[in-house]
């Protein structure tokens, strides 16, 4: 009720989208290279990795937690998939197994939070460190390359996941990257889950007031465990898309990804205390970060300056989003 309104629209709720539109317009005006269709599609592909992770992170943060282990889960799941392919298992089997592993890795974090009664920050700091170490142990610290070539069967599927495009329906000029299609599909799944199901209500209630939620019969431990599982699954999915795209896996994949994901969630207006936030906001946050990375690269801004500019944009967006 206290939201500032412009033309009857609450800007507090759409702050991130307004910032995104502004950024896209500004970069389009400056750079002809930026405003091409192929660049936008490429941008979507780049956004999909952080996007998937950020969707899982949104659920965790909505319950009042945080998941620092996403980057390590991303890497460890990818390494597990790569090792299985190198071992000679069919690609679809390796992919499904790695997704299951990612879910289990998330559940471990969840158990530390619920049964172990650790604070989410500490619990996932522990799993973050452990999973990174495991990825190093499995690979002896070395990269695994030429994965597609090693697939015993199903190499088509493996290649398509991260690299592929959906071409047939459209003209050749507009190729929609498969990761972007996955991202959009997952977005709708999360949107439905959070807004239309009783499970979504329980997530919000747990983050809003744990004691109250427990007293009206919400099994808060089950809710918490499940969001870490979802976060693990999403991180693994993103990791698999990534190794498909670059056709190799390294144990130091995804270092620092947790921070990009948290930044995207915060940009999208989700409260770090839990209970408040929208998955659509996270989409805007993910796209802002992707547009910044992409646009600043095209403009030739050196990476050191890029970081500072990114920080400033996040600061401005978060400040302007305050009630």
């Amino acid at each position, binding site marked *: 009720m206290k939201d500032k309104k412009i033309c009857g629209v609450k800007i507090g709720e759409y702050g991130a989208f307004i910032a995104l539109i502004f950024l896209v317009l500004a970069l389009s005006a400056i750079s002809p290279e930026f405003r091409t269709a192929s660049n936008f599609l490429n941008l979507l592909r780049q956004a999909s990795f952080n996007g998937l992770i950020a969707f899982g992170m949104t659920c965790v943060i909505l319950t009042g937690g945080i998941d620092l282990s996403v980057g390590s889960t991303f890497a460890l799941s990818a390494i597990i998939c790569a090792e299985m392919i190198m071992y000679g298992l069919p690609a679809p089997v390796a992919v499904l197994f790695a997704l299951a592993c990612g879910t289990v890795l998330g559940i471990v974090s969840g158990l530390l939070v619920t049964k172990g009664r650790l604070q989410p920050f500490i619990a996932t700091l522990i799993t973050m460190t452990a999973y990174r170490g495991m990825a190093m142990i499995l690979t002896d610290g070395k990269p695994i390359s030429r994965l597609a070539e090693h697939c015993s069967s199903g190499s088509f599927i493996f290649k398509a996941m991260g690299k592929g495009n959906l071409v047939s329906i459209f003209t050749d000029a507009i190729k929609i990257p498969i990761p972007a299609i996955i991202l959009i599909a997952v977005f709708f799944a999360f949107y439905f889950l959070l807004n239309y199901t009783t499970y*979504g209500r329980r997530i919000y*209630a747990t983050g*809003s007031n744990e004691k109250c*939620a427990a007293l009206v*019969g*919400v099994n808060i431990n089950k809710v918490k465990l499940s969001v870490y599982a979802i976060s693990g699954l999403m991180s693994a999915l993103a990791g698999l898309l990534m190794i498909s795209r670059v056709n190799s896996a390294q144990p130091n994949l995804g270092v620092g990804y947790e921070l990009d994901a948290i930044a995207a969630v915060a940009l999208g207006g989700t409260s770090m205390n839990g209970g408040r936030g929208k998955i659509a906001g996270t989409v805007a946050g993910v796209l802002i970060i992707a547009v910044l990375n992409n646009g600043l690269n095209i403009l030739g801004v050196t990476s050191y300056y890029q970081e500072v500019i990114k920080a400033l944009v996040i600061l401005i967006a978060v400040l302007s989003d305050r009630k």
Partner: protein
Amino acid sequence: MNVEMKGIDKSFGTNQVLKNVEFSLRDGEIHALMGENGSGKSTMMKILTGVYTRDAGKVFVDGKEVVYNNPQEAEKAGIVFIYQELNVLFDMTVEENMFMGKEIVGPFGICDKAAMRKQAQDVMDKLGVNIPVDAVMSDLSVGQQQMVEIAKALMVDAKVLIMDEPTAALTQSETRTLFEVVKGLRAKGVSIVYISHRMEELFELCDRISILRDGEYVGTRDMKTVTMEEIVQMMIGREIGERFPKREHKIGEEIFRVENLNHPKLFRDVNFNVRAGEVLGVAGLMGAGRTEIMHAIFGNMPNVTGKVFIDGKEVSIANPRQAIQAGIGFITEDRKVEGLLLEKSICENIEIANLDRISENNVVSFAKSNELAQAGIDDFKIRCFGTDHECVNLSGGNQQKVVLAKWIYTNPKILILDEPTRGVDIGAKKEIYNVINDMAAKGVAVIMVSSELPEVLGMADRVMVIHDGQVAGIIDGAEADQQKVMTLATGGSL
């Protein structure tokens, strides 16, 4: 120090909360300030201490006009406000709390612990209370924490002390100690503004009383000559009829029985039953174990042994989910901490307890959810802008109605209410009593825990008194009176 406030106006947005209000405080008196929730008591005191600025009017201290821009300026002048929600750093010691922001420092900014400890001890001695100054705050009882707050006020040499509901969370004996301290301060010339809803206390402690109603000044009376009826009349400005509405329906068979409920520390050998349509009042002193027993029944406490029977069949309740399935509803003591998703809307608060009712195959129907919330607003006369009104912006009474609504729509067979009218004004209290009576008339077994004795006596068919974790006795409503209940509550026998 004397204080004179004249013609004070204050609005928040379009809502005028104080209209031409006046208040006068004499040297060395205890002045009670009373009024319903939202009548403007706290706002007026916050204007005096510089938390809010006034829109109009003047404040004189010792005859001179003053303006305090913030609480620090008021404190410097000797006016200190002790809030109901204590302003305490729980992980720090008593002495650290007392000197927070005004530490005694030696060379290089190093704290002089010894000096601070000694000075803190001196203040405690002056107050005549025995609290170790190196104790950690969270280890102290609420009463002791309150004493530390008073000690803090004395350290800045307070001449005017404003206390907001200081006894709300105190035990009987802590209340006695507080009264002695407050009277001692008066003898030393400190003027005290005492805000409380507890009528009995005011007659014992205060010299004069001022009353506000709907942001307007009603009057000031001498405590020696005023009567309780007159105060109530001034406060609500209308007749509310009978304070406790009557029930006429018949009480049925036993629905609910508890046998040998035990907890290693908190309570033991608790046995009682409740019948259909009956209201069982639960009385006892603060800390006797009433709230804990209710949480245990609801499955919200570990290490509890004992049996619970519903409709004659034993049920096992290990967590709140099973309690709800068994047909129990539980309106907890502290609605802000346990009862509400405070930042969420009325709709979201009602739906979270009724997810089965508003969903099909776990998919929520927005229409049903909204319908249920609207029904809640209509049935319980919740004053709000609509179903998406956030609960944090509702008054205490309306918040409590939201909690009642969400539980009553789960159609409980047994309804437990813990302090259902705490912090709720007289008008809303009566509405809550009506809801309780309606539930009883429908055949629900009602258990009502309350620290307000008149409420228990006025509402209950039977009164169960808890003392020191045990059932001290169960008295029939018709025979129960204040004296019998207090005798049992303090460990005596009838």
